[in-house]
C-alpha cells in the first residue's frame, strides 16, 4: 500500500516506521505534531480537535497524491487525531519514504504545511478559564 490516510482517536507513533519502510527507501522522514503546554505564555490544559471527516479524508488524499506526483516517493502516511488531547500527546503524524533523503524531507514539509492550510479540522485551545478556536479571528 502506497498511502495511509486516516483520522483516528489516538495516534500510535511507534507504528509509522513499519508503514513507511520499504526495500527501495534509503530515507524515511516523519513529522509529529504534539500538544504544547504554553500558548503566548498561557497554560494550555488540553486541545480539542473536531473534523468534517468525509471531506478531511478527501483533502488529505489530494495532498498525498500531489506529493506522490511531485516527488519520487515510495510510501506516504497522513494521520490526524480527533477528540481531546493533553500536553505532549501526538495530534498529527505525516511521513514519506524515498530512495534518497531530499525527496522525503521536502515531501514531509509539504504534507504538514498543506494539511494545515486546507484540511477541515478545527482545534480548540482549552485554558484554565476560557476556550479559544484557533485561527478563527484576526
Amino acid at each position: 500500500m502506497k498511502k495511509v490516510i486516516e483520522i483516528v482517536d489516538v495516534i500510535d507513533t511507534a507504528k509509522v516506521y513499519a508503514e513507511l519502510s520499504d526495500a527501495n527507501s534509503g530515507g524515511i522522514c516523519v513529522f509529529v505534531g504534539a500538544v504544547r503546554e504554553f500558548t503566548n505564555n498561557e497554560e494550555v490544559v488540553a486541545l480539542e480537535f473536531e473534523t468534517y471527516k468525509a471531506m478531511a479524508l478527501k483533502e488529505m488524499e489530494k495532498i498525498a497524491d500531489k506529493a506522490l506526483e511531485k516527488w519520487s516517493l515510495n510510501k506516504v502516511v497522513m494521520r490526524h487525531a480527533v477528540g481531546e488531547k493533553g500536553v505532549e500527546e501526538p495530534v498529527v503524524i505525516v511521513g514519506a519514504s524515498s530512495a534518497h533523503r531530499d525527496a522525503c524531507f521536502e515531501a514531509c514539509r509539504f504534507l504538514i504545511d498543506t494539511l494545515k492550510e486546507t484540511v477541515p479540522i478545527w482545534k480548540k485551545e482549552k485554558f484554565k478559564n476560557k476556550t479559544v478556536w484557533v485561527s478563527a479571528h484576526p
Partner: protein
Amino acid sequence: MNVLFFGITKDIVGSSEISFSDEFKPVNVAELKKQLIESYPEFSKLNSLAVAVNSEYADDNVLLNGNEEIAIIPPVSGG
C-alpha cells in the same frame, strides 16, 4: 436544504445543522454566505468563511439545488 456547521460556526449558530425552508433557500454559495452573515453577524468577524458542497470546497458562483451536502468551513486549524 440542510447546512452543516463545524468549529466556531457551530458555536455561533448553536447547532451542528440547520434547515432552510424553500422560500429562503439560497440559489448559490454567495447567497448562502450572505444570508448566514445577515442572520449571524458574528460570521463576518471570522478570518475566512468557506463553503463545501458535497465535501469539496465550492466557489461563490456554485449553484445549490438543495440536494447537496452543504457545510460551512470556518478557518481550519489542524496540525
